């Protein structure tokens, strides 16, 4: 089949960008979306196209590393349930389709080139408190603390977040709440996460607010596009923990001597 692509081309963060149109003839339904872009890029290279091949981020191509992601016809990752762009296959498109590709749009995610953005703000949110403070060597036996299967499963549901940023891109406010809450809920469901639970919520939410993300107004677009099925309930859990942490308003013991 033949696909027409309208792709956002932007040389670097400071350059102006523009949409460019490309034809990809001979697309096989068994190709992945990124393989279709590979074919386009080989063609652009051979033709010595002035803009060069289209830059997009990718690595595992198995839906797990979280590298890939852009808007396909205005929907993050293209809108197939639990599917990242790299796992999307061309059998979901038809001959003659006209497809628009744009990078994640969010102030906190500056465009680096074409469809590639900078998501370092996510790392800074994790660094602010998204962990259990346990150093190597100081762990008790793995079975020392029994964990209810249900809690362990809930933790795992949230731990599956791949940090792709689709939730931010889909949110009209560009909020990072779904991402941030996934980590808070992952650790918050486990006994290991309890000692720092409130402090963690406080630090991570404050960090999120310090980045250029917008605030959450419960629209739910994030949940709809999340390839890993992270649920809005996690945001509710984050808000509860944050409220409790703020309510207690005591100096966090963790800050004394930390670092």
């Amino acid at each position, binding site marked *: 089949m033949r696909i027409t692509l309208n792709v956002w081309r932007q040389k*670097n963060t400071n350059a102006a960008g523009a949409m460019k149109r490309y034809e990809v003839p001979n697309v096989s*339904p*068994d*190709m*992945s979306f*990124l*393989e*279709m872009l*590979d074919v386009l890029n*080989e063609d652009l*290279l051979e033709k010595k196209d002035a803009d*060069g*091949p289209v*830059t997009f*981020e990718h*690595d*595992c*191509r*198995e839906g*797990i*590393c*979280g*590298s890939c992601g852009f808007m396909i016809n205005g929907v993050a990752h293209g809108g197939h349930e*639990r599917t990242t762009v790299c*796992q999307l296959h061309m*059998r979901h498109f038809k001959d003659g389709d006209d497809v628009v590709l744009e990078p994640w749009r969010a102030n906190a995610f500056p465009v680096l080139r074409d469809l590639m953005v*900078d*998501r370092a703000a996510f*790392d800074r949110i*994790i*660094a*602010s408190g*998204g*962990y*259990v*403070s*346990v*150093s*190597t*060597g100081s*762990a*008790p*036996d*793995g*079975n020392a603390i029994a*964990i*209810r*299967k249900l809690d*362990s*499963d809930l*933790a*795992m549901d949230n*731990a*599956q977040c791949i*940090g792709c940023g689709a939730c931010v891109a889909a949110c009209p406010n560009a909020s990072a709440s779904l991402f941030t809450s996934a980590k808070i809920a*992952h*650790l918050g469901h486990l006994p*290991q*996460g309890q000692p720092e639970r409130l402090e963690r919520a406080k630090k991570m939410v404050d960090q999120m607010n310090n980045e250029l993300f917008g605030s959450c107004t419960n629209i739910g677009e994030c949940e709809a596009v999340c390839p890993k099925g992270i649920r809005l309930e996690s945001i509710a859990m984050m808000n509860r923990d944050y409220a409790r942490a703020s309510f207690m308003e005591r100096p966090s013991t963790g800050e004394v001597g930390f*670092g």
Partner: protein
Amino acid sequence: MELNSRVPSGDITTRWTRTKFDMKLVNPANKRKHSVIVVGSGLAGAAAAATMGELGYNVKCFCFQDSPRRAHSIAAQGGINAAKNYQNDGDSIYRLFYDTVKGGDFRARESNVYRLAEISVNIIDQCVAQGVPFAREYGGTLSNRSFGGAQVSRTFYARGQTGQQLLLGAYQALERQIEAGRVQMLARREMLDLVNIDGQARGIVCRNLTTGAIESYAADVVVLATGGYGNVFYLSTNAKGSNVTATWRAHKRGALFGNPCFTQIHPTCIPVSGDYQSKLTLMSESLRNDGRIWVPLKAGDKRKAADIPESERDYYLERMYPAFGNLVPRDIASRAAKKMCDEGRGVGESGFGVYLDFSESIQRLGADKIRERYGNLFEMYDRITGEDPYKLPMRIYPAVHYTMGGLWVDYQLMTTVPGLFCLGEANFSDHGANRLGASALMQGLADGYFIAPACVGNYLASTKFQPVDTSHSAFKDAEANVTGLTKRMLNASAKRTVTSFHRDLGKLMWEYCGMARNEKGLKLAIGKIDALREEFWDSVNVPGTGDELNQSLENAGRVADLIELGSLMCRDALAREESCGGHYREEHQTPEGEALRDDENYAFVSAWQWEGEKKAQSLVKEPLTFDYVKPSQRSYK
């Protein structure tokens, strides 16, 4: 050159404890003054950087992705081994040690393997404490499953995303140290050269992948944890970015490369569907616990699976290896699949596939139970192939998955360059000629959390360091080397794309240095690869400039190194006149077609020394001795 493996002697069960006791310690007040570079943020690199940060060293960590959380370790599905014996099924450190030495077909060091098995139990504790959500039983204890080739249940897992959860644990520990100011993270940096001063590794030169700037970093120690080189085959289960550049450039600066030809071909991957194919997807080996592998009995049988009656199916693994059946080690399962397809009994359009059939276990256990165990894998298969494995048998075929070879390291994980350490899949150690399932994650974390921090400390405490900074002429030389290579690629005649070279290399490697190898093919491949190299530098098409974000340029540098590596792999395979583990020389097989080892002449590690551009590397041997596990012909019948 003589290799000193620094393997301790005496009782194997106390070798690591005694080694640690004999190590020099760095005074806590001095730790901050020592700078450590860690290249790589996968399980091995992130664990090492975080732990050395916790210990108080001044650490810089590098990766080429945008975030340390995206390292290729994230993709590991099946699980991680540990000799916890929580299932009371007869497991022990000694049994894990024994299984690993045997599984590796007697081409690994006993001392290293024992240490790995010993540390495995600490890894699980550490990960649980970090909040890794391993699978649990209703009673709240940790679950285990048995995994490829093991007769005990010692594999810990987190659904089908074990690597992801372990890496996120290490990543979070790393971010904690970044926040504390003890680790500086430099993402989107690609190490392109190693800098040695006075015979010691003292720094690296990187390209900043966002701006194109060439940057130098100095330190007292350089640790490489840069993963495997399976992408030398172009198609593999590795992430697209996985490459050999860091270790290859270190090889050119004096680090010997160990057992380059030892690669692992994984038996259960989704078959190739067309020329555009960019990578292969693994279907976790855990599927072999409940799936039965078969092909039609008759060659050329093109009927649909459902139309082939039981009596005309050949469950060939169960037939050939009754004791282990579908759970034989990877190398054996892969070769058997190739054999079936070579006999014309392969399935699917291309004929390069065999069935992995769940109908019987679905009948026995119910679809829900199967969904609980493998739901996400079944979904992934469906998403990629458009076929529903609850209704049709999966089609699978072997694909390149893991590289046992890598930089040669001694017992303390140091390469032949003093001050240059190598961890995880990037080094050659521990798995011999074949890696057992769920043992790479174990090794990466053992190296990163426990072994490297101790050994690096020992090196720092026992070595004298001259102060150096990046204005040293050795840094300037390395920068000039890197800039020169970039220029050559940008200025070549632009006739062929990087990917087209990479595809050609992959085809040669798969054909001649893949599941079966022979003298004639290897010699042919060496000639063709060397010619490909010439052509690459003459005519590669790299657009744009070096001063911008340029993915074609990044990829070109990686492919250039993979081409050189490919040639060395073929030379290594040619020199090893025996079959062992994943290395199968057709000239050396038993009458039944099994791998035939030659312990008398080939019980050694091949370590290759760089002799200069366009010169053949020379071979240095490290003899292997087996005091505990007596070499025997592996038998899974």
